């Protein structure tokens, strides 16, 4: 009992000191804040050299486009809706009633936690000035120098830099939340908070830099040239593979394989899946950071792949088990969304049907196999996001076409086998970072505060044991 009390104190102190630190920081940097509007414009708006003849107009300063900005803001809101209520309900409906609130809370509070982390240091680590291709520097901490009224042409030339920042914030949020499917129904709330904060900082932020950051070593913004339009490696492989590590380190839920662990509210899960689909248009089509041809194409293939994946999972289940299930269709849709994510800016609608159908099929197989292998990835974070993300990243190397996106690359089926190899390297890097990093963080958290709730608490459920609340009265 004493240790529990102690831990509580420690955690409390941690939290409080965190909050206090933030506030101090806040006040301190307050002056800076006033300058976020006056970021020295980058190269794009450099004053034209004096001698330029008047007829040759100087390069116009990067200009904010209202249509593009409207679309990216809308997309940011859509991606927020993916985490809460989307993922919160998708996962919340799949657990047992006694853990419903606790599971919903995980998505909800990650949204809160990472939103603040992102503004304070996460965005800087991910997208700030490059440090050896590995990580962003801390120069943009507290959004110092991230303009609200000017674009940063490295990332998005026609919308305010802060619009790009907040759009990316939603990606960081949902990635951390996706992992919670793996450790659902048994993780201690305080440890969960600490784990999530560490994971975001030490896994997500660097990985995002590798793939999307200016100068990151993997991506197309100065790196090897692996393609990841909206986050196959950064979001789905990273969360899915980390989920696998969580499932292995935490071990199975009490009564796994013996007790009835049916989802307590599948309509809630379908609602969540539908909101994921809805929000994912922001995720993928928003990743064009402009409202034009590319966003349109990404929108179309996202919808098509998702539909095909749901049908494929349904058919696979129908053939294998004899009945098509609703949870299967919903899971298939999510698998399709996952798989099309990295490809969405590079492939056409017919390719997307194949990518989607493959996702539905592979992820269904993964889920079946899991129940044979016996590890307890409670809500299939790995089975859906790990497998679906890997398939999607590789499929991008197969189906990408410069006819769709001249800024991308051709894949194997369009005559460029090298791209598949690049995709493979990106996948491997993401797998290794996610698995090893998560393993280390979990072990540290386990040694210092413990990862799992006690058996009694698990029996009672997270809602009552962690929050003293019940979902339904």
């Amino acid at each position: 009992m004493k240790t529990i009390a102690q831990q509580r104190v420690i955690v409390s102190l941690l939290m409080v000191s965190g909050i206090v630190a933030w506030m101090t920081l806040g006040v301190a940097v307050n002056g800076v804040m006033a300058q976020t509007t006056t970021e020295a414009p980058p190269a794009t708006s450099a004053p034209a050299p004096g001698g330029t003849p008047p007829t040759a107009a100087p390069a116009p300063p990067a200009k904010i486009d209202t249509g593009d900005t409207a679309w990216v803001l809308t997309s940011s809101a859509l991606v927020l809706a993916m985490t809460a209520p989307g993922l919160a309900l998708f996962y919340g409906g799949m657990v047992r009633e006694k853990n419903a609130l606790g599971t919903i809370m995980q998505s909800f509070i990650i949204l809160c936690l990472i939103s603040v982390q992102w503004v304070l240091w996460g965005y800087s680590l991910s997208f700030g000035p490059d440090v050896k291709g590995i990580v962003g520097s801390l120069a943009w901490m507290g959004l110092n120098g991230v303009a609200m009224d000017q674009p940063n042409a490295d990332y998005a030339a026609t919308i305010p830099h802060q619009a790009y920042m907040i759009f990316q914030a939603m990606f960081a949020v949902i990635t951390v939340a996706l992992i919670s499917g793996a450790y659902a129904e048994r993780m201690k709330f305080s440890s969960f908070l600490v784990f999530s904060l560490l994971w975001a900082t030490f896994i997500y932020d660097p990985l995002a830099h590798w793939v999307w950051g200016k100068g990151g070593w993997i991506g197309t913004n100065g790196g090897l040239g692996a393609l990841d339009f909206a986050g196959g490696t950064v979001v789905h492989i990273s969360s899915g593979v980390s989920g696998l590590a969580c499932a292995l380190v935490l071990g199975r839920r009490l009564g796994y394989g013996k007790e009835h662990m049916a989802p307590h509210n599948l309509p809630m899960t379908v609602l969540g899946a539908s909101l994921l689909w809805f929000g994912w248009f922001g995720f993928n089509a928003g990743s064009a950071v402009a409202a034009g041809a590319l966003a349109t194409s990404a929108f179309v293939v996202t919808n098509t792949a998702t539909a095909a994946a749901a049908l494929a999972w349904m058919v696979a289940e129908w053939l294998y088990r004899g009945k098509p299930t609703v949870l299967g269709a919903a899971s298939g849709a999510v698998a399709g969304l996952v798989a099309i994510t990295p490809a969405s800016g590079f492939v056409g609608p017919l390719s997307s049907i194949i990518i989607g159908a493959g996702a539905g099929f592979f992820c269904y197989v993964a889920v079946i196999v899991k129940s044979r292998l016996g590890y307890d990835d409670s809500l299939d974070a790995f089975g859906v996001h790990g497998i679906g993300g890997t398939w999607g990243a590789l499929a991008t190397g197969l189906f990408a076409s410069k006819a769709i996106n001249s800024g991308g690359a051709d894949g194997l089926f369009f005559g460029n086998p090298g791209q598949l190899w690049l995709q493979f390297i990106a996948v491997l890097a993401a797998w290794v970072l996610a698995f090893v990093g998560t393993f280390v963080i979990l072990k540290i958290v386990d040694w210092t505060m413990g990862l799992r709730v006690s058996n009694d608490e698990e029996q009672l459920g997270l809602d009552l044991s962690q929050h003293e609340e019940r979902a339904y009265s």
Partner: protein
Amino acid sequence: MKKIEAVIKPFKLEDVKDALTEIGVFGMTVTEVRGFGRQKGHKEAYRGTEYTVEFLPKTKIEVVVPDNLAERVVETLIRTAKTGSIGDGKIFVMNLSEVIRIRTGETGDRAL
């Protein structure tokens, strides 16, 4: 007085209630229960996991009646709750030592 408990198929409740009312039963108490018996359950599947559910939804009716009405109640229950297929349920009859109506404090048959 006798207390008669019947476990029946849920969709039979309306019929049973109507029939009992007709023969002069003025009250009953109903509980949603789950039953296990010879009737086989159904399968459920959620992603990779299958469950066989052996407890089926049943409705339990409790009727307290004067001794002389008991037999007719049992007959009526059999008649109206029967579908002829397995799982129709059971009737249990037991003795009560006392019945009281809370509102008035009346006891015995007058409390019914």
